[in-house]
């Protein structure tokens, strides 16, 4: 498919020039760093500083890489011809003369700053030579008109590059001169080719023959331009080419290499003459056309020829009266390139009978011979399989992509445990060093004695924890052991002076058990052994390391003397927060903002759970782990009967816990959980439908109300110009009631209370609703 080939060409061109661009960017940035400025003038002025700098080789390489890719130098020569077939927008972008010559101009621009060193010479001139020769050679074997021209362009760009590489000032002038000349004749040739394509409908020289008869005018123009390309005297191409030959001889290189430039130049000249001859003869003579798509071809409309005429005229003028015509332009351009003092050069038709002229003649004769003997060469060339760079490029890319894909897949393999392992290992890696240097450290405060009940409790906890891990595959048993751990943790909080924590832990514990029981119903009742022994060993080791690490830190931490900002809380809790339960005052006042965030988390979790399960269907196993079918009675009589008196009593307890919270252990959160659990008992004992019929509110709204109360309680203070969450409290004395406290923080705590109830119940009931027995599957129910 031609179009797709074109696109591949475009992608290749993009990649090559883009990559080159990046290299160039890097080079320029380095230069900028060296000079300390990105002003072009400063850079050009600081040439010696740059060349002296250690980074110069890198910078030069990068800049040249950019230049070579852009100006299609070997080995990046391949993209240019393909770019010409690319989809119009892309080719317009790439193929515009600026883009193609950009690289060359670039070298011209940076010439003063970078040229004149060994590295410059070898890199530039040898690349130039290779390109010059290769381009000319390939051009000769192209059957496509544009292809021929394209590779000729490549070759000429090589020539110009070579000239810049030589590093002499005259060479630079010659380069500039040739840029100008090449632009003129190559542009006219491309247009001519365009006309022919337009008139005959093809660019294949094997079919295009003897056009002289059909479009003599165009033919004349094209032939003149082609001759200039070949370097025929009296035409501009000849002049710059002479200069080039001359310069190729001026290089003082060691030994045999000295012969390389002139020989390469002559060879290239021979090819150039040959393909130019082919362009003239094979197109305009050489018998009759072979079934052209458009037959017979005509002269194109006038306006199409005008630009060609102008350009060809330019070729002639420059060729015959160089000094008069191109002199000023050349001088100024050379001045710009060299950055000052332009060497004196002579623009004349003839410099006398000298070696360069001999080379030209040799090239001319050789070229004609080569063209006449072209069939041999074609035969010779045909022996080599022409490599399709596009295919190469495509296969390279696809190989890279494939490689990347396999690499990624092997690392990012969707194993949660691998990611978790990486996380754990990272933590170990970073914490290892400091902790190792800490070692088994016991601080100044030293160890306090262990009372044996606590010791036994700790032992029980440790055993239960280990047992949980050990028989985690026996899920129910593991859960029972887990709740033992939870219970002892709660007792631990009580043991170490944290009554509020003990209560919180206990109530959360119960809700969690219910939660896990609700979930376990749908899950397999035991875990199959998935991981291999080696893997288990690895995990045990990782676990052990983290455990030891935590032990060491804790030990060091607990035995170090310590002072904290908490003195402030103890001092201001009563006076500033109006409560004697400092923990609660911190929660609803000093750090009330944390608590606001905390209940928001709870609320979001519940809403998320609701959303997650809304349209989830789960089929529970028909029987338990040992295969006993579930019993029929869902709501045992005794439980049902107990649930009734329990609710009011529990509500009262929660009211009690709530109201005392500000001054004694308790508070909104714990009270909220008590209420939630009391209601949960109703659900468990009597089922979803009856309970929800009796609860006259939607949990969403309870959550919203909770958050709203908390926010309003906080925002109330704004009215008095105090910041958000500033608490106020007042000790009122009413006739009957007597003295009592009203605290804005209590409203905040009420918000907490409601949010907790709403969130807990919404979450658990959403899971309960999954049950196939539950009548209400739709969210329209009262929650």
């Amino acid at each position, binding site marked *: 498919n031609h179009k797709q080939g074109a696109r591949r060409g475009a992608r290749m061109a993009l990649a090559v020039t883009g990559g080159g661009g990046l290299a160039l960017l890097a080079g320029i940035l380095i230069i900028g760093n060296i000079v300390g400025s990105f002003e072009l003038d400063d850079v050009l002025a600081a040439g010696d500083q740059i060349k002296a700098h250690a980074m110069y080789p890198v910078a030069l390489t990068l800049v040249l890489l950019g230049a070579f890719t852009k100006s299609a130098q070997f080995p990046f020569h391949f993209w240019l011809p393909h770019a010409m077939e690319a989809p119009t927008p892309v080719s317009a972008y790439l193929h515009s003369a600026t883009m193609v010559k950009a690289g060359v101009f670039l070298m011209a621009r940076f010439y003063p700053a970078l040229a004149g060193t060994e590295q410059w010479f070898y890199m530039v001139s040898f690349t130039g030579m290779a390109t010059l020769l290769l381009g000319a050679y390939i051009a000769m074997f192209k059957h496509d008109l544009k292809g021929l021209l394209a590779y000729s362009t490549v070759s000429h760009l090589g020539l110009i590059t070579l000239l810049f590489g030589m590093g002499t000032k005259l060479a630079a002038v010659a380069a500039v001169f040739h840029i100008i000349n090449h632009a003129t004749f190559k542009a006219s040739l491309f247009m001519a080719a365009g006309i022919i394509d337009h008139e005959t409908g093809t660019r294949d020289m094997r079919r295009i023959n003897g056009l002289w008869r059909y479009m003599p005018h165009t033919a004349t123009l094209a032939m003149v331009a082609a001759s200039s390309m070949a370097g025929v005297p009296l035409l501009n191409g000849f002049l710059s080419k002479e200069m080039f030959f001359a310069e190729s001889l001026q290089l003082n290189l060691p030994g045999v290499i000295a012969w390389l430039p002139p020989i390469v130049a002559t060879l290239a000249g021979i090819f150039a003459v040959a393909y130019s001859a082919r362009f003239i003869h094979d197109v305009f003579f050489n018998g009759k056309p072979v079934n052209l798509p458009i037959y017979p071809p005509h002269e194109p409309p006038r306006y199409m020829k005008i630009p060609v005429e102008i350009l060809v005229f330019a070729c002639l003028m420059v060729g015959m009266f160089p000094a008069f015509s191109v002199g000023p332009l050349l001088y100024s351009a050379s001045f710009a390139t060299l950055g000052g003092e332009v060497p004196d050069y002579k623009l004349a038709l003839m410099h006398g009978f000298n070696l360069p002229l001999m080379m030209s003649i040799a090239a001319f004769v050789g070229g004609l011979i080569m063209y006449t003997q072209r069939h041999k060469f074609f035969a010779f060339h045909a022996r080599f399989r022409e490599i399709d760079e596009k295919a190469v490029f495509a296969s390279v890319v696809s190989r890279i992509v494939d490689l990347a894909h396999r690499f990624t897949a092997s690392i990012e*393999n969707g*194993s949660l*445990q*691998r990611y*978790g392992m990486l996380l754990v290992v990272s933590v170990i890696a970073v914490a290892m060093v400091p902790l190792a240097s800490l070692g088994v450290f016991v601080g100044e405060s030293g160890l306090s004695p*262990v*009372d044996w009940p*606590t010791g036994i409790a*700790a032992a029980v906890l*440790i055993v239960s924890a280990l047992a*949980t891990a050990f028989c*985690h595959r026996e899920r129910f048993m593991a859960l029972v052991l887990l709740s033992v751990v939870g219970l002892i*943790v709660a007792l*631990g909080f009580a043991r*170490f*002076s*944290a009554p*509020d924590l003990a209560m*919180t*832990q206990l109530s959360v514990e119960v*809700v969690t058990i219910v*939660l*896990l029981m609700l*979930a376990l119903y*749908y*899950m*397999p009742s035991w875990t*199959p*052994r*998935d*991981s*291999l022994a080696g893997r288990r060993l690895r*995990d045990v080791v990782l676990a052990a390391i*983290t*455990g030891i*690490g*935590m032990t060491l830190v*804790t030990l060091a*931490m*607990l*035995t170090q003397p310590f002072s904290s900002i*908490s003195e402030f809380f*103890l001092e201001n809790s009563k006076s500033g927060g109006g409560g*004697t*339960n*400092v923990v609660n005052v911190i*929660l609803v006042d000093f750090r009330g903002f*944390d608590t606001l965030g*905390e209940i928001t988390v*709870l609320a979001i*979790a*519940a809403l998320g759970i609701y959303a*997650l399960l809304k349209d*989830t*269907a*789960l089929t529970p196993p028909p029987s338990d782990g040992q295969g006993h079918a579930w019993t029929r009675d869902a709501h045992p009589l005794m439980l049902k009967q107990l649930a009734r008196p329990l609710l009011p009593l529990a509500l009262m307890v929660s009211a009690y816990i709530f109201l005392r919270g500000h*001054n*004694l252990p308790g508070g909104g*959160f714990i009270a909220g959980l008590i209420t939630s659990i009391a209601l949960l008992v109703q659900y468990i004992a009597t089922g979803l439908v009856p309970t929800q019929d009796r609860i006259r509110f939607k949990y969403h709204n309870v959550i919203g109300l909770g958050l709203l109360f908390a926010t309003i309680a906080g925002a109330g203070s704004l009215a008095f110009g105090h910041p958000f969450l500033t608490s106020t409290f007042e000790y009122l004395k009413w006739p009957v009631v007597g003295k009592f406290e009203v605290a804005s923080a209590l409203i905040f705590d009420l918000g907490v209370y409601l949010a907790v109830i709403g969130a807990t119940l919404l979450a658990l009931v959403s*899971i309960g609703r999954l049950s196939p027995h539950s009548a209400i599957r739709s969210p329209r129910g009262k929650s």
Partner: protein
Amino acid sequence: MELVFALVIGTLTATGVYLLLRARTFPVVMGLTLLSYGVNLFLFSSGRLATGQQPILGSTENYADPLPQALVLTAIVIGFAMTAFLVVMSLRNLADNDDDHVDGKQPKRPAEEDEQEEEARGK
């Protein structure tokens, strides 16, 4: 006492981590629970250990550091919310992929062991 406390925290962390690295959601849930027990105790103990010094003004002479207690309370609540969500996520996972395996590909060999085991349990 400090050493005992440290050992408890160490054990909780270790067992938690081990379970976290299991291939099924349920052990992971349990692992996270154990881990958060450990973490909460650790955060709690960052205010040092005190006996009978509950930070209720007037209930004793000197008081334990109340700030870590408040922090842990927040942590417990958030932990609960997260656990609940995770449990529901694994339920959802069960519903979507009718399996609670989350460790990429399932290994072949151990599965056979399971069958024998299942025979054994089928009492």
